[in-house]
């Protein structure tokens, strides 16, 4: 398989291109995704290649984009709608929670809704309150949704392809801070990275750091710079989370730090922490600590104070290491 160096935007674009070439049931829809190629350029060139019947520049209505995609999916198409910023997905929450997530259940399994809802999320691009949010918990809290978030170009493409080939709706959260943050060799053809499997990004004995999305590189930088002997788990899929990978690591280290950018209260870190204590409190030498965004909106000018950084991650790691 030939490969090319790609950033995350290019990798996603390549994944969409592969999917569309292979399967005419794939339809893209969203705001500014056609002529403009998407405000982040993820769908660049796809309108020219696949035509306006398969790449729909829609009016400005997220609830309509999602609802229409659900209708397409139920009738056998494989839509991949884009919501321009995750912050605006909230105007489509009824369709997501009460339709998308419940089609299979409410029809006794007669109908299904295989689709991938893509959207950029997270801070770090100076977007302020409404272009920075990390709302993964809202989706994780809704049974029926699969929640995926990549942390590298290679993972982004492989996970997108798996998500699109599944049988259930997937919320595909793209960490926009990483869109152009780095390049990697990415195969030009189709390949899959399994949904529901975490990646052990680096292995160590002293502590388990569990993270995902845009925090993965920050955690890895911290680990490398400070020579931490840590297991670093990139969850990649939040729902269903890879319990086996987590428990295996916890059994080994007995010390856990969870890092995410979303606010602490009701954040996904709490869920992981509960899961670990329910299954393995006996393995733990220290309380599980969370390093998260604060329980406040995301400020524009003072953004750097919001996103977890090396100092905060290191503090938490030291604390759990010091516990007897």
């Amino acid at each position: 398989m030939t490969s090319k160096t790609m950033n995350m935007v290019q990798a996603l674009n390549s994944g969409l291109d592969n999917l569309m070439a292979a399967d005419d049931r794939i339809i893209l829809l969203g705001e500014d995704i056609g002529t403009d190629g998407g405000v982040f350029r993820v769908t660049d060139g796809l309108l020219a290649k696949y035509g306006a019947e398969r790449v729909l520049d829609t009016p400005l209505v997220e609830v309509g984009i999602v609802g229409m995609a659900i209708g397409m999916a139920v009738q056998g198409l494989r839509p991949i709608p884009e919501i321009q910023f995750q912050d605006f997905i909230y105007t489509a929450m009824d369709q997501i929670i009460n339709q998308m997530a419940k089609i299979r259940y409410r029809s006794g399994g007669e109908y299904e809704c295989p689709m991938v809802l893509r959207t950029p999320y997270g801070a770090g691009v100076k977007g302020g309150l409404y272009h920075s949010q990390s709302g993964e918990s809202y989706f994780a809290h809704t049974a029926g949704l699969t929640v995926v978030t990549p942390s590298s170009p290679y993972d982004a493409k492989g996970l997108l392809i798996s998500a699109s080939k599944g049988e259930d709706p997937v919320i595909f959260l793209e960490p926009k801070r990483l869109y152009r943050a780095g390049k990697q060799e990415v195969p030009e053809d189709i390949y899959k990275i399994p949904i529901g499997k975490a990646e052990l990004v680096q292995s160590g004995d002293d502590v388990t750091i569990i993270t995902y999305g845009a925090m993965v590189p920050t955690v890895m930088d911290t680990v490398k710079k400070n020579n931490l002997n840590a297991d670093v788990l990139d969850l990649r899929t939040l729902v269903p989370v890879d319990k086996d990978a987590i428990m295996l690591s916890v059994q080994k280290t007995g010390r856990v730090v969870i890092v995410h950018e979303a606010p602490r209260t009701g954040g996904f870190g709490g869920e992981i922490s509960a899961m670990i204590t329910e299954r393995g409190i006996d393995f733990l030498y220290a309380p599980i600590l969370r390093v998260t965004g604060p329980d406040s909106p995301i400020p524009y000018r003072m953004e750097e104070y919001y996103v977890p950084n090396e100092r905060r991650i290191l503090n938490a790691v030291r604390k759990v290491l010091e516990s007897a």
Partner: protein
Amino acid sequence: MEQQQKKESKQSEKPQYIRAYAAMVLSRTLDKKIVSAQRQGRVGFYTPTMGQEALQVGVSMALEKEDLVYGYYRDVPMMLHRGVPIETIINQIMGNSADTAKGRQMPSHYTSKALHFMSVQSPVASNLPLAAGAAYALKYRQKKNVVVTTFGDGATSTPDFHAGMNLAAVFKLPLVFVCENNGWAISLPVERQTPVEISLKASAYGMPGVKADGMNFVEMYKVARAAIQDARAGKGPTLIDALSYRMGPHSTSDDPTKYRKDDVKEGSEKDPLVIGEKLLISMDYADDKLLEKIRNEAVKTVDERFDACEKIPPPDPITAFQDVYKNMTWMLEEEVKDIL
């Protein structure tokens, strides 16, 4: 008698029109300053307002001091005309410690409670139902004021547009909907946003819908004045489709060459400022010398104020965590201790 009246109205009209033109010029000058500062990395982001000056100033001319505006991210000309200090705009763009919202919001998201300009949100059109609530509050308190809400052509596709329009009509609220129809929603032309003329949408809610030439401030003023008078008189809401043109990019992050050819050039005869100048001259309210003076003053004001605002330091980091609630929760207190 009639002659006398005409003369009187001309006497009050002249300064009013000159002031309107001055606000448009000030806004345009500031717009260009911010865009060029953004290119130099002195400003993070901005949504230019070029092309929408006349429509906004026309609406503002028809408003009274205590009327409320539930606007959106392109309303600088209206704010300046209403008397919002230019520093309020610049400090917001800079997100510095003098900014009303303490640097919390991305540029172009203004607030001015003093001049009744509700703080701007990013999600398109969610100000419309709020405007209905605000109008209800005015009506309930038997105030003689009205609410104006502004939004783009793209906003007309949203459920919030429908909700706001329907509620205003059902409760016969003192609310005027001003669609700043600049022809584009980022890359989508208005013809692809909706296949009908936006003014026609009003009839579905049982309210009047009027088209106005939003490039002509006098025309716009007259249309807005009629709608606002109706609202004030208890006759209910109106939708104004203010036909204009987004002369700049959607924002400083946008590259319009991907999707359109720029067809309204600054200084061309379609430019609302050029139209305004011609009007003033034809009415004999101004001559080239006066117009020139207004333009020069605007440049001076903008340069001075911009430089001064740029020197203002950033907000104290603690302010990023305040005003979430009236009192800080214990959770946030704990988090802030770890962060700062």
